C-alpha cells in the first residue's frame, strides 16, 4: 500500500450530500466495515445516522484513493483523542477532519493537522446571551456589533470557527473557553489557543444555508469546496 502524498501546504475540502433515497444510504452503509455499521445502527434514522454513514463512507473512499487500497481496508483506528485516525504506517502525513450537520457532510484532508466544522441553517435561541456565557469578551462584542437580524449568523460563524480550531488543536469542546477567534497582524481571521498557539481560519461557502469553517496551521490562498455526490468516484487530480 503506497500513499499518494499531498504537498505540504495542500488542503482539500469536499462536500458530500446525505442521499435522500434510503436505498442509496443503505448501500453506503453496507460498504462500511462491521463495527462502523454497528455504530450506525445505534444512531437515529432520519437524524445523525445519515450524516455518519455518508461522511464515513466518503472519508473511506477519499482516503482509499490516496492510499491505493479498497475503502473498506482503509486502516482507520480510534486515535488517542478518541477520533478516527489513520494507522501510523498507512499515512503518517495524511490528516483529515470530518463534520456533518443536517444533510451535508464536509471532509478536509491535508498534510498537516486540519479541523473543519459545519452547521446547517438552524435557530439559535438567544445568540447574545449564549455568546455572553460561552465566548470571550471580544467574541461577544463581535456578535453584539452585528445588526440584530444578522446576530444568529455571526454567532454561528464564530461557533464553527471555534469548533474547527478546537478540532485542529485536539482539545475538543471542553476547551471552548481556551480558544479565541480573532484577527492576526495581517487582518486575516485566526484562532489563538493556550500557550499562544495560533491557527489560520477561513469561512467556507460549503452549501446554501450552511455556515462552515476550516482551521489549520497554514491555509492556501485559494480554497474551493469540491462537491461530490454520495456515490461519485473521487477525482483527486494534483490538487
Amino acid at each position, binding site marked *: 500500500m503506497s500513499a499518494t502524498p499531498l504537498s505540504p501546504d495542500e488542503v482539500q475540502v469536499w462536500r458530500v450530500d446525505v442521499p435522500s433515497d434510503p436505498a442509496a444510504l443503505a448501500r453506503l452503509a453496507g460498504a462500511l466495515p462491521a463495527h462502523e455499521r454497528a455504530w450506525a445502527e*445505534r444512531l437515529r434514522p432520519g437524524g445523525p445516522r445519515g450524516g455518519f454513514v455518508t461522511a464515513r463512507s466518503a472519508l473511506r473512499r477519499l482516503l482509499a484513493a490516496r492510499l491505493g487500497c479498497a475503502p473498506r481496508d482503509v486502516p482507520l483506528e*480510534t486515535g488517542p483523542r478518541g477520533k478516527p485516525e489513520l494507522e501510523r504506517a498507512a499515512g503518517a502525513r495524511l490528516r483529515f477532519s470530518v463534520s456533518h450537520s443536517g444533510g451535508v457532510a464536509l471532509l478536509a484532508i491535508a498534510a498537516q493537522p486540519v479541523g473543519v466544522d459545519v*452547521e446547517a441553517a438552524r435557530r439559535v435561541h438567544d445568540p447574545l446571551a449564549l455568546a455572553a456565557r*460561552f465566548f470571550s469578551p471580544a467574541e461577544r462584542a463581535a456578535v453584539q456589533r452585528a445588526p440584530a437580524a444578522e446576530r444568529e449568523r455571526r454567532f454561528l460563524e464564530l*461557533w464553527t470557527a471555534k469548533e474547527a480550531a478546537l478540532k485542529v488543536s485536539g482539545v475538543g469542546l471542553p476547551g471552548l473557553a481556551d480558544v479565541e477567534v480573532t484577527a492576526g497582524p495581517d487582518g486575516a481571521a485566526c484562532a489563538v489557543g493556550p500557550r499562544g498557539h495560533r491557527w489560520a481560519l477561513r469561512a467556507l461557502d460549503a452549501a446554501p444555508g450552511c455556515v462552515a469553517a476550516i482551521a489549520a496551521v497554514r491555509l492556501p490562498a485559494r480554497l474551493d469546496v469540491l462537491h461530490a455526490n454520495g456515490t461519485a468516484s473521487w477525482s483527486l487530480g494534483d490538487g
Partner: protein
Amino acid sequence: MDAPVAQDDVVARVARRVAEVLALSPAEVKPGSRLMTDLGADSLDLVELMFLLEQEFGIRLTREDLSLSAQLGLPEEELRTGEVLTPKALELLRARFPAAGDVLHEGATRRELAALLTVEEIARSVRGRLASP
C-alpha cells in the same frame, strides 16, 4: 425558602428543554433518550441546552456536569490510557449503566461516553447542582 423541586419534575423540565432545543415534539423525548445518538444533538445543541437549564433552574453547570467520565471521580491515570478508558473505569460505568454494553466495549474512548448522555443523566446533574450549587 423555595420548596424543593420534585425529582420527577426535574426530569420533565429537562425533557421539555431538550425538546425545545432540538425542535422535537415533547412526546419524542423520553427520560432514557440518549441525546446524541437517539435525538441527534450536536455540540452546539448541548451548549444551548446547558444555558437554558442554567436559566430555568438558576444554577451554573460545569463541563463536568455533562461529562460521565469526570463524574467517576477517578484520578486521570486510573480513568484512561490516552483517551481509551481503563478496565477499572469500564467496570464502574457498566455497574452504573448495565444496559449500555453497546457503548461500554473494551477499547471505548472517553469521547464515546457522550453517547450515554440521557435526559435522566442530565436531570441527575441538575439535581446535584440544586442540592449543592
